[in-house]
């Protein structure tokens, strides 16, 4: 695997849309060719090389390419946009849409990331060592097709509206989450090791939520059914099991009505 290191040297005055910073866009290109890829600052289109120093050539394919992003990229959006393979390491904190529409490969964000990361993610892995923003692994605005595959691990906290319209895949948050988790979900799994606020699983049709900490206010549409012992991420614990959202339509599978499942640690 070849490594390309891009380091911020001329910080943009406005937010920079760097939707070409992905192993797919870099693949098969030399450092000089990568520096010529387009980026957008406000309404102006210019080159990656105007802002970043590029060192190293990419591999022949996305899978053979690893990108390391260094320097202050707090005002850079769309890192890892639509990537299908390879690796992306972001050393600092960054802005919106990290790994949005990603289908494969691996992103490691060592700092914090802002909202809309992994929008409509289909596959691959996103690891965030800091905190994640709102709408993590959610559907694009207006769309009903959210995250459908892949895995997201947030070691810090995550914001509101995570996993909105999720249909598959897994999100694990080691810290706390804000309001509205897995709203409208039709599948997928969310594990929160810390605490959740209100509106967890609102209008959920299918899928699974596991909360180790507290939930400020339960949705009234969730009905307690039993207790269950689960093994999650290597740890065994006892949980209260709720099903819902009872206010929504639910599909049948093998003659049985399917509900969203919410487990809260006792």
């Amino acid at each position, binding site marked *: 695997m070849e490594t390309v290191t891009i380091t911020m040297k001329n910080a943009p005055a406005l937010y920079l849309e760097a939707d070409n910073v992905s192993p797919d866009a870099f693949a098969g290109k030399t450092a000089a060719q990568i520096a010529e890829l387009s980026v957008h600052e406000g309404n102006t289109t210019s080159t990656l090389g105007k802002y970043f120093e590029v060192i190293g050539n990419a591999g022949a394919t996305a899978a053979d390419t690893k990108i390391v992003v260094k320097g202050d990229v707090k005002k850079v959006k769309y890192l890892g946009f639509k990537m299908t393979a390879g690796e992306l390491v972001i050393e600092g904190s960054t802005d919106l849409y990290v790994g949005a529409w990603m289908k494969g490969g691996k992103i490691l964000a060592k700092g914090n990331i802002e909202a809309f990361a992994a929008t409509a993610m289909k596959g691959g892995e996103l690891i965030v060592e800091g905190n994640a923003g709102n709408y993590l692994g959610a559907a*694009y*605005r*207006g*769309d*009903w097709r959210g995250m459908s595959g892949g895995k997201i691990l947030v070691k810090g906290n995550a914001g509101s509206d995570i996993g909105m319209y999720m249909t598959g895949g897994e999100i694990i948050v080691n810290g706390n989450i804000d309001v509205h988790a897995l709203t409208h979900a039709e599948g997928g799994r969310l594990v929160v090791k810390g605490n959740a606020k209100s509106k967890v699983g609102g209008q959920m049709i299918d899928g699974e939520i596991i909360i180790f900490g507290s939930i400020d206010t339960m949705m009234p549409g969730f009905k307690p059914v039993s207790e269950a012992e689960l093994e999650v991420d290597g740890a065994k614990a006892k949980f209260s099991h709720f099903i819902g959202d009872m206010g929504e*339509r639910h599909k049948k599978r093998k003659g049985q009505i399917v509900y969203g499942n919410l487990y809260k640690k006792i």
Partner: protein
Amino acid sequence: MSEYIIKNGHVFDPVQGIKGDKKDISIKDGKIVDKVSSSAKVIDAKDKTVMAGAVEIHAHIAGPKVNLGRIYRPEDKLFSCTPTHGMERMGGGASIPTTFKTGYEYAKMGYTTAMEAAMPPLFSRHVHEEIRDTPIIDEGAFPVFGNNWFVMEYLKNHEIENTAAYCAWLLRATKGYAIKIVNPGGTEAWGWGLNCLSIHDPVPYFDITPAEIIKGLIEANEYLGLPHSMHIHPNNLGNPGCYETTLDTLKLAEGFKTKNKFGREQVMHLTHTQFHSYKGTNWGDFESGAKEVTDYVNKNKNITIDTGNVTLDETTTMTADGPFEHHLCGLNHLKWANVDVELETAAGVVPYIYSPNISVCAIQWAIGLEIPLMMKDPMRCYITTDHPNAGPFTRYPRVIKWLMSKKARDAQVNAFKHKDKVLSQTSIGSLDREISLYELAQMTRAGPAKSLGLSAMCGGLKPGMDADVAVYNFNPDKPVANPDDIETAFSRCAAVFKSGIQVVSNGEIVSTGNKRTLWVDVHVKDNPQVMRDINEKFVKFYSMTQNNYEALGHHFVPNPYALEVDATQA
């Protein structure tokens, strides 16, 4: 204005009966002429196809429900935006493009005239603001009358003269083009939680049937002698077995004759026929009723139809058939929006994905193609996608490919997941007909122009007509190696002229032309009763005053073109 001569192209013009002969087309002062001077600019059309500008008879491209679709579907613009370039302003949207993109896309495909198929009268100002902002193409809009309180009250007592006077007033107030009916009575019935699924289901409170509304509006239309006929989206759209309702509706036109000075021959236009040609009793035994419907239309010359081809895309359905959209939302569980328009109509919007992996969608695709292939007279059957309901209008080149190439149809049938079901439930596999370029010109130019009463103005290349001309990179002398070449050729014109101005060159917009709003100005005998009724309804029921109702003046209709009709002697 400058002169042009389009030289050596293969010309297809049903108006003059020209079937691909090499001919020069001369343009001067916005019109087709016999001759131009030697200083005329030459457009080389050698090995290319030349036709009149195409005419869109039915699309939803302007107004509140289109805009509601744009507002509540931001995802429709995702990855479909084009930035400002050359003459073009930025645009976006796949199934519900922005107004600017709508104008550009039509022009690039060689369309120069388009009709907005359902204008809620109360929101005609909004419709005209969007028409104004849609560049290049001439546009008209059909106000909807089929669930209108005035119409239902007059027709309940068969008051044709009053109905006609009201229609004339409304056409002028809304700058409308024709009488459109959508699910007659059914949309109003839905206000009571009901629907009219047959032409004999009574409308609650008004106690009138769809059949009475339909016949009454045909009579009013012919009383006035309007350029276009009554244009109908019948009851019971989109349900298995609905072809029977469609045949019942078509039979209502029997015995009626046209009376107009615009060269129109039909008294009824049936729109998006595909959605009304379903047999079967449920989605499991769903099958094509295209043969039954086209057999009837083939025999009855006073009817024209358009197709409503399913293009197998993700799209946004929108119709004044409010109850249908609610029903559709119950089937696909996607987001639903609905609007009630006071005394006049309603509308609903639901996204829809016509998936090639779902047998019903694949059968709908086949029915849409069976209809034009089974219609004997291409002058009475026009290609539409009921944009955006069965697919976006930007897919016309693909529909043309399927119609012109059996090979392309077979390739699509073979790609369906439920191929056997498509072949058993429709006759698409046994239809060998391939539409010729001449027939295509009939179905997309001369035919719709005649049906709309515009045959003296557009849809042909006869000297004296408006110089709306499209030149395609398609050589009719060469056999088609790959059907996809048809789609490519009809997607982007080599050149397009609109009223004598070159608007497209090599697939790029080079001018925004001289866009006009087409409307019908009918003069009727003074009718104090109808004027009093209008005044009374505004005072008692409407949420706005009559003064704020009319679409008038430069802001709404900056470049009007009125078709004058004198019905004072009727």
